[in-house]
């Protein structure tokens, strides 16, 4: 086992100062980094920045309008948070599909976001609600919309001296969000397809439609053509059929050890169709 030197700052400013040196690889819950270290495939990090003591990165809160989640919030905490239950149940649902209890108790939403796996389970939900990520460095803070955060395969918009601080999103009562993950088995499963659907409804038509997927591309993505097709309509059967067809056309998944391109394409369309049927009530 590789054991690089580690520093465990107690405050965010210390953490940012250390991060600015460029030599530290951050660790939150360790459920990704420790696996990578154990696999010993790439060059190990020079040093590790242990964020686990930085209290400023923890906690879920709301001002009644916007929900703020600290980057170090674990999946278990998301599942048990009354704020998340009330405002974005789909995120709690996504958290409940990650690994099993042991992983949920340690893994963090910030880690999920920064690890940038195309299969990250919470990521489509965050895309679907237009979440904004606050990132910080010694140079100050800036905000990055989720849609701009994952730039290519396992790459993010974070600069080398930045840390993800918090995740913010607004969801009011008229917004509905659904989540579905198709994994390799019932628990401890990496997704073959993971999809989040979000929309605003006035009872007659949908607006601000978001369809976000993971495991079908190098990054989590929004299916913008599919979204455009749903925008302004009520998802009746014809609309749903067309949306599914557009989605199947829009994505280019691959064959890999977990599944096949054909399966992912087909299942993405079917899962979307099912969610549209359920949300459309027919």
């Amino acid at each position, binding site marked *: *086992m*590789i054991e690089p030197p580690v520093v465990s700052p107690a405050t965010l400013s210390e953490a940012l100062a250390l991060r600015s040196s460029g030599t530290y690889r951050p660790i939150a819950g360790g459920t990704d980094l420790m696996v990578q270290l154990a*696999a*010993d495939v790439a060059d190990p990090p020079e040093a590790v920045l242990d964020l686990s003591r930085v209290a400023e990165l923890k906690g879920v809160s709301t001002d009644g309008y916007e929900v703020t989640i600290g980057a170090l919030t674990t999946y278990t905490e998301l599942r048990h948070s009354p704020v998340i239950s009330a405002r974005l149940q789909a995120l709690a649902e996504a958290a409940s599909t990650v690994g*099993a209890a042991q992983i949920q108790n340690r893994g963090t939403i910030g880690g999920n976001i920064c690890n940038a796996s195309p299969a990250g389970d919470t990521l489509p939900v965050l895309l679907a609600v237009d979440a904004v990520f606050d990132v910080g460095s010694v140079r100050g803070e800036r905000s990055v919309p989720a849609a701009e955060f994952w730039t290519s395969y396992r790459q993010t918009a974070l600069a080398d001296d930045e840390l993800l601080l918090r995740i913010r999103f607004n969801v009011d009562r008229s917004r509905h969000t659904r989540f579905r993950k*198709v994994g*390799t*088995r*019932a*628990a*401890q*499963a*990496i997704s073959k397809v993971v999809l989040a659907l979000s929309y605003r409804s006035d009872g007659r038509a949908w607006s601000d439609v978001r369809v976000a997927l993971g495991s079908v591309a190098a990054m989590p993505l929004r299916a913008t053509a599919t979204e455009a097709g749903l925008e302004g309509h009520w998802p009746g059967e014809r609309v749903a*059929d067309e949306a*599914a*067809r557009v989605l*199947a056309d829009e994505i280019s998944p691959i064959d890999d*050890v*977990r*599944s*096949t391109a*054909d*399966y992912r394409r*087909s*299942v993405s*369309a*079917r*899962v979307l*169709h*099912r969610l549209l*049927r359920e949300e459309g009530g027919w």
Partner: protein
Amino acid sequence: MSDTRKTQASAEGPVVLTPPAPGQAAAPTLGVAIPAPLRREGPHKLTGEAKYTDDLVFPGAWYGATIRSTEAHARFLGLEQDTDFDWSKVVIMMAKDIPGDNVVSIIMDDMPALATDEIEHVAQPVALLAAPDKATLREARKRITLRTEPLPPVFDPLDSDHQFAAYEITKGDPGSAFDEATLVVQGEYRVGHQEQLYIENQAMIAEPRPDGGVTITGSMQCPYYVHSALKRALGLSDEQAVITQAETGGGFGGKEDYPSVVAIHAALLAQRIGKPVRMIYDRHEDIASTTKRHPAIVRYRSGVSAGGRLVAQDIEVIMDGGAYCTLSPVVLSRGVLHAGGPYECPNVHIKGRSMATNTPPNSAFRGFGAPQVGFAHELQVARIAAELDISPAELRERWAYREGGTTPSGQVLHESVAALEVLREATEAADYDSVLQLSRQTRAIRWGQAAEAGAGYNSTRVRTASGIGIAMGWHGAGFTGRGEVMMASTAGVELGADGVIRLLIANTEIGQGTNTVMPMIVAEVLGVEPSEVELAPIDTSIVPNSGPTVASRTVMVVGGLVSKAAARLRALVEERSGGIFADVYRADAAAHGATRIDQQYESEVEVEFDDETHTGDAYPAFGWACAVARVEVDLDTGEVRVRSVVSADDVGRVIHPLLAEGQVEGGTLQAVGYGTIEEMKLEEGRYLNDRLSTYIIPTSMDAPDIKAILVEAPFSGSPHGAKGVGELPMNVAAPAIVDAIHDAVGVWITELPATSEKVLAALEAQA
């Protein structure tokens, strides 16, 4: 929750059940009428005190690693070592450094311990590396590369011209019989690799001995296999090679012959370095390089008469043995002998061959050839039942062997045939007939919905489709043919000078309950409590070679040996000391010192089996099983959720109900995994699913509700009537699931595992 219908786990002990049949064989002379004790080593395992190999501390030990090929077929030209590393800190060994024969001895001598000039599979051991600490070892490993010249590989057994074994069986006249059959159903079935996935990785620690030999401590099923292999490779005498088994975390066949490889490697290094060497695999290496279940292609033709009788079978079995022979001939043999299924058929032709490919060698895994052919024979029956529009259970009832039936090898089943009993028990417990009837009533609608779902992106209102399926199987108890005669195992019982009764067997506890059940058998004969019977350490310098812990033979065969030895010991002590053994044995030991009785295997009857023609009595007896599975298929994703499996298994005699149920439950879940999610993909001869995150076994949330029903059709040839329980359950759940998928959605999945990708593709193909 399991429900042992036919035996009661009560203080009174198991209740004997013999299936009602005329001309019954004589009841066993020694029943088991003592209460089943709790697992002997249970408390140790539950407190964390039990020491598995990696838990053991050997001061001064070095760490060993195996340098492996990354190509499937190549000429090996040499090792390259980076110059910027201090090689004096480590030890490297290659084939030329092997003092004995460079071979891993099992059946053929074709597999080298370390590659010489040709690499035959990915992950083949080419060199050994050892260092005094893990960090140095890790660094050194990165600085070694292999110089090779690629050679063309063969990955498809159908393309291979290197055969490990072939067998052919003919009974009656299948050619003519097919001409007269009114229905012929034909199919080709494929089953893939399966990884045993014992939760404890392969592990060996070797210590050099003052006498020039090596002591091995490790995770294993068969200490004497390791002993044999070590002697050959290191050129050691019987006494110089000492093999001891540490607590072992699962085997399932994966630790039958592979441990010899690890032991040889660790021993070579230990001998060279003069210090203990730890060779503990990590999960990735274990999956990437160790033996797996043989993939197979089974081509099957079944002929049915106008009266609905099974009149002809023509079966071809092709197994993929991987690069080296290992146990392939024996796996093929069992596969061929079981390929007809538990059904009487007057005209049978079975031809099987096991072929080499440039993939890691395949070998033993619970079931050992029977699960592979079991999938095929059960899908044939299922499809025939569908063609004839008759209940799959009813068809099996018509065709299943009865006492007096004749197998394809010409063996008359004189006794202990419980096919009908397990069929009845499983179908009753699962309410099969009613559920099937209801299911059939809605079948047209359900299959229509499934077809609609398959047709396009349209989903149906209904999201899942449920189905019920059934399968039967059989499993020859113990070794095939003359295997037991040739092995000539010896087991012993000793009354020590210290007054302690000891069992001297080399059969290992690997979770199945050897340490609990074997003392029960001896205790009953001696008339003492099981707690008064100790087990001698599994150490080849202490215990005799009672044969490997495989083939579900431990209780049936070795139990028979120790029963006889115990009976002789009891007679001797009672005669000499006067009085009942239980009362006098301690005094006897004080007076007479140690008394050891060894019993060697002798067959009660002449075993008439011709290996070449595969005719005659293949097994002393067969175990019989029937599984009923209920599944739910997700019409959007093709995911198959196995809700329940009822498995009725005839084990001859239940010695310990809780442990026997445990074997049925565990074997059933492994079969569920085999049937649904345990997919092993290969690319250029390399396993792609080589981590626990990618080789998917069932979690508790994937596992169905499993109900084990233990049936007893005792076999007169083992003193307590037992026929083995470890493997039989593995043979039935997978085809039952595939039958259930058909009931649910109307498609036949003819290739295992029935992954969601395959199910969805089958639904979509209907359109």
